[in-house]
């Protein structure tokens, strides 16, 4: 059965006025995926430990609700990421701007794999350059250059947003732009809809 067809059946109460989108959230371990999503849901981040499986969280925004499937990013879990791509309408990739050179390289490889994966290559990407509050954090320009986004992601829709858990406004700004992209694509696929 088509996974998406039952989305509207889940709420037996009055329908929510906000559209829902299914997105997948990946990134290396320690990049801050769980922390950011938890903060966006206004929950406490005190007890967060590395994710070893996956989470499903409905994250509310002003214009939409994102049903985020967040996957753990440790070495032994990354090989399972592609099992969770099915049904996604967008990708959130979180990276640690202040990580070591080696880790940054690994993150770049993973991002490139995701950008080129057949199930994700037509989807919009929100790339969160997290941990900007740390002294060792690379700047927006440095990240853009290092990750080769302009040549590699040509023809794809992406947003690169610097942020940190200390600055949730920047995070929300990134997500709101991302939601605009999702809405645009939705409208492209349903011509004639107001």
């Amino acid at each position: 059965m088509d996974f998406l067809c039952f989305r509207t059946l889940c709420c037996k109460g009055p329908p929510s006025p906000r559209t829902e989108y299914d997105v997948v959230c990946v990134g290396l371990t320690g990049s801050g995926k769980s922390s950011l999503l938890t903060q966006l849901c206004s929950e406490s981040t005190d007890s967060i430990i590395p994710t070893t499986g996956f989470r499903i969280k409905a994250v509310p925004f002003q214009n939409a609700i994102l049903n985020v499937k967040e996957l753990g990013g440790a070495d032994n879990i990354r090989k399972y990421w592609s099992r969770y791509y099915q049904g996604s309408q967008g990708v959130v990739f979180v990276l640690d701007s202040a990580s070591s050179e080696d880790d940054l390289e690994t993150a770049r490889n993973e991002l490139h794999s995701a950008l080129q994966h057949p199930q994700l290559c037509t989807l919009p990407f929100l790339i969160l350059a997290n941990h900007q509050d740390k002294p060792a954090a690379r700047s927006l320009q440095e990240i853009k250059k290092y990750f080769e986004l302009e040549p590699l992601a040509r023809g794809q829709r992406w947003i690169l947003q610097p942020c940190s858990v200390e600055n949730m406004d920047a995070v929300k700004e990134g997500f709101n732009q991302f939601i605009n992209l999702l809405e645009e694509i939705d409208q492209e696929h349903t011509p004639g809809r107001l």
Partner: protein
Amino acid sequence: MAWKAPGGSERPAPGPCPRPRLPLAPPADEYSILFGTGDRVVEMEDAEVENLAISISSDVDAEFDAVIGHIEDIIMDEEFQVLQRHFMDKYYLEFENTEENKLSYTSIFQEYVDLLEKYIEQQLIERIPTFNMATFITSLQQHKDEISGDIFDMLLTFTDFLAFKEMFLDYRMEKEGHGLDFSGDLIVTSLSKSSSLSPASNNIRPFQ
């Protein structure tokens, strides 16, 4: 959402005659007929109005009703219940009541769908040779408010991972709840002056 064996003793045994089980959209406010099962309100004006309401429904609606009726029969049947119970027994210990999901839940979910949803589909095709799953799913969207709670919950577990997980968690709670031995937890203590049990020496543990 509690997992319970669909049907049970409350439902009448399926008879040979098709009966209207699902509420039809009231054409105007003249009729206040609602059919339903489970927790829906059941009111009937009179038999004539019931017959009129049935004739209003289209062929497609009748087909849809028939499929729902068959699904009820299939899931109430012993064969399905055994299949489902075996599957749940095999895996329920894997499921924990935490927000984070183990990667194994995904493969178990896939196995569940492959086993049980396909079984239902096969059974439906045997009963209705022209049955088409895609058509049915489209009808489901339109009739979503009319399906009884049990059927709805069951169908949801095939497509909604969180509903599937909750089903397992409920099952685990039932299995483990029955297994707990409370006999050591409650002790009757005399309140007369002669008994001087201090709090430390009694065996009453806080209820968990």
